[in-house]
């Protein structure tokens, strides 16, 4: 099972701190499943071109097994069946 952790404003939208999904594929596909579960507005906010451009989230960082997908294959990054995915607002730290 893929475990997805939500935090901060994203958790406020989902109402869940975490969820598990029976899935293996890529990040884009995982976001589609999350949209089914939490509503299309969530996926739209996560990947809005206005917030980042190029289909990559601008105000949200997505990590697969601890690595930022911008260092991997962006939305095409593979998500294994036992992967951990973190969705974290980009504006924090420093």
């Amino acid at each position, binding site marked *: 099972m893929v475990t997805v952790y939500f935090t*901060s404003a994203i958790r406020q939208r989902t109402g869940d701190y975490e969820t598990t999904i029976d899935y293996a594929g890529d990040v884009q596909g995982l976001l589609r499943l999350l949209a089914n579960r939490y509503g299309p507005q969530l996926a739209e906010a996560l990947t809005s071109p206005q917030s980042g451009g190029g289909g990559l989230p601008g*105000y949200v960082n997505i990590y697969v097994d601890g690595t930022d997908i911008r260092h991997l294959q962006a939305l095409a990054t593979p998500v294994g069946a036992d992967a951990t995915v973190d969705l974290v607002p980009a504006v924090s730290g420093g």
Partner: protein
Amino acid sequence: MVQSGAPSASFPEGLADDVSSAPFALRCSRCRRTATHTLSAACSEDFAPLEVQLDLDVIAAECARPGVAAPRGIWRYGALLPIATTARLPWHVGGTPLRRAKRLGKALGLRDVWVKDDTVNPTGSFKDRPTAIAVSRAQALGLSSIGCASTGNLAAATAAAGAIAQLPTYVLVPSHLGLAKLAAPRALGARVIAIDGTYDHVNRIANLLADRRGWGFVNINLRPFYTEGSKTLAFEVAEDLGWQTPDRIILPLGSGALLCAVAKGFSEVDAVGWLEESRPTRFVGSQPVGCAPIVDAFASGAEAPSPVRNPTTIAESLAIGDPASGREALAVIRGSGGSADAPSTDDVLEAIALLGSTEGIFVEPAGGTVVATAKRLAATGVIDPDEKVVLALTGSGLKTPGVLHAVSAPAVAPNLRAVEGILLANGWSGSTPIPPSTTQGRTTAW
């Protein structure tokens, strides 16, 4: 008119926690919606940054510049801070010197250089400013614990603030930090968690932890208030220049938040009518080679930085590969007609020595980065020799002695002859030695 920080009955109800706080709202910087959650840094609709928006019209009408009797320090500017007097942390932070740096200026070929010496804050860096405001906000919200994700300086600042507030304090840092930066938060009573990874790993974990525990992490879910603290550096610069802003200010870039906060600070003192004259300031950001995502984006014309996966720099306080305020910092730099620069490690080390030997200020590599950028921009004519330039020195060199190992001195035998030999070998003859024939008493040959 009332003095800064004094209560004003005309502040609109519902905007502020208390009549003695500046009237403010917490809004999304993009969609302008008012935040529905008080402990958050991002809008729950579009996940864009939340920011504190002051009611500057009210402040302009009700609040004069701070009076001469108002103590120096960040609370001097309470009229422009979103913290009620009852929640203010009793910690003397800020009020640091802005010094004319004539000798440094002469070395750089510039006639009007000033240094803002924030190394003299209580824990040795500017991070005491944002932390004081964020922890005050935590107190106002009645939070049970505080914390931060840090490259070192913020860890000490948060630990000190937690000790003063008597709140359990959790600081998450990369495990590779230098001894001084790991030891300080422990000595100040914080619970230190050293994570085997980069700052960006630390930041991700801290995000998840703070939210699940309901703790107030100063640079995460208290971040809109944290950045309000950094703008006090701008207030002090403007006041100490005679209520005017400089032609140019050079700041280190880690997350980019400081540069944005200083721009907000200058804008606010202008908007409330505290400046003698409104004049533009060019913002220059400096990052070291090895971790310069904002500088790289500036050079390429990109709207936002591309993250650096493994930062490699001696400036560990600037080793943030994914700068949270990078997009906003780029907009400020470009909008001001400023620039961004990335000096090399050698440039940084030389600049630390230049600043130390001309002005007697010992800075960590972030400060050396700023001075190195000033030198590079002066040499290439980007800075006009007559410009009024401020250099932000944000952290003490006493925190990072390790970077200067390369210039450490070899041990010398404990006798005068050996020491005189070192003077001779190095050509160090600052004054004429006293010849034996003129000394009083008995002299024997060496």
